[in-house]
């Protein structure tokens, strides 16, 4: 199957202008850094609207990062049968994230899917919670995403910028950010 690399179609979805963007991932696990990479791209242009959570499996760190924000966009790597680089899009405020895209990879940790459900149980979900999933291929140790994932990162970053920040003036382009794992992204981490 050919990866779906065009922007996800959001027909019928009402989007506000402006949202809080959260990139999630482990910068030292290759394609797992996809969400962080998207957020790093956007942070350079819209620094007041983006946070990067490295290894953000601590539920309170993630949940408190969207408290008080009516519309939130989260980007994370996914791990299903889809080809690498496939872009998924989910409305997590309306229904749980699918287990086949966000499988439980730990006996004790809470991943994004479980954190969302914990927040739902605690009535701490934002009113709108959109989740982009970028299908990964390689989650081994490494600080560089695979080629199809890098292409998807560019597409998702461009799409979020166009859909949520079109009326904002971007900060002029500066030298590209250092590779993840070396730049000073906000840390919100712990492994549970």
């Amino acid at each position, binding site marked *: 199957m050919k990866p779906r690399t065009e922007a996800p179609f959001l027909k019928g979805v009402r989007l506000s202008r402006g949202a809080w963007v959260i990139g999630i991932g482990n910068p030292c696990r290759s394609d797992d850094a996809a969400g962080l990479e998207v957020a790093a791209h956007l942070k350079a242009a819209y620094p007041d609207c983006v946070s990067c959570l490295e290894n953000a499996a*601590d539920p309170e760190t993630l949940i408190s990062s969207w408290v008080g924000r009516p519309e939130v966009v989260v980007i994370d790597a996914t791990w299903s049968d889809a080809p690498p680089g496939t872009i998924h899009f989910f409305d997590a405020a309306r229904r749980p994230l699918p287990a086949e895209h966000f499988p439980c990879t730990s*006996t004790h940790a809470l991943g994004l899917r479980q954190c969302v459900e914990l927040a739902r*149980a605690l009535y701490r979900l934002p009113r709108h919670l959109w989740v982009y999933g970028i299908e990964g291929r390689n989650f081994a140790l490494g600080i560089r995403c695979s080629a199809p994932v890098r292409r998807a990162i560019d597409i998702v970053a461009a799409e979020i910028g166009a859909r949520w920040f079109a009326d904002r003036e971007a900060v002029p382009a500066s030298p590209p950010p250092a590779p993840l794992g070396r730049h000073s992204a906000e840390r919100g*981490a712990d*492994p549970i």
Partner: protein
Amino acid sequence: MKPTSKRSLRVAYLARVEGEGALDIQVKDGRVTEAQLRIFEPPRFFEAFLRGRAYHEAPDITARICGICPVAYQMSAVHAVEDAFGVSIPEPLRLLRRLIYCGEWIESHALHVYMLHAPDFLGFDDAIQMAAVHPDHVQRGLGLKKIGNELVALLGGREIHPINVKVGGFYRAPTPAELRALTDRLKWARDAALATVAFVAGFDFPSFEQDYEFVALRHPEEYPFNEGRLTSSKGLDIPVREFNRHFEEDHVAHSTALHARIAERGAYFVGPLARYALNYDRLGPSAQEAARAAGLDTVCRNPFKSIIVRSVEMVYACEEALRIIACYEMPAQPAVAIEPVAASGYACTEAPRGILYHRYRLDARGIIRDLRIVPPTSQNQATIEADLRALVTARLDLPDDRLTRLSEQVIRNYDPCISCSVHFLRLNVERSSS
């Protein structure tokens, strides 16, 4: 249920524990013939990684053994290396080490109490189910865990695998103002920990007590984190450097983690119940009062009640953190100078799950030539299996599903950190030639 049949209780993948393990119990003719905590997570070879490395790499490399208790690995590593080099650190740095350990205990205990253990007692499969019925309690647990993480992040540079701990002290010491900024949050945490004790004390606990040999550090004045002699409830009282003379490790076929035993007597028990039993008089007044109000005596031999003791220890850790912050004076230097010498060093510190032993043999350049690490979970394995055997023997009348669930709970009583327990490398090579 008739006790004459053959029964097998199996859990292929234990949930709500750190790492990968399984449970296997065999019952034949009303007798438990096998009770195994099978640890199948692959060995991780950390002792091999460290051979040939410089002494200053030990805290950062061993911290990678565990994402839940990296501070414990760092503390045991720096104390053992400093023991080898004959280094002593000034009081402000000693207190900062206690403070970072407070953070780790708070976050680790909050995780286990609320996310991993409480669902057992309340009949839920996980904390998400529990949150739907007890949102305020789960929210309190999340808040406690977060303040523990914040404390570790402030002192360690980040929450997991901190990078600010070094042999001789810290790379950077926090300012008093940075620490004082946490005071109000820690006061909230202390109250939340007290509420936690009251909450978990109301659970129904199976009637189950064993004659354990508790082993923990004992300090002349303080509830132990980093210092003290190794003591036990059956008379052991030794300096840490004599650990090897009294404790043995064996390989068993069903576990990639070594089983530890006291040479003279066998299985023993480390962790909150052991610390509490051997150091009750070192807890502060409010932690003692909370324990009494929860119905605990000065010694608790029911491992199911470890959830209460963990909560009491959270009260202590919050109060100790507040005490240290209140009296903190910034050290003149964040670390003392280190001069390597050829020597061996030993240390035990109290990880959230129990004593964590490190031994290093270093050469004159400070290169690690040999080392040994004995984590708490491998020390508790034999006791966990003895608990399983005793509990199943006493509850054979229960149907399989309830007995299996209760057996899983027995394992979770110990908050096992399976990933920690399988760090070892013991390789025997037999060579022959034709």
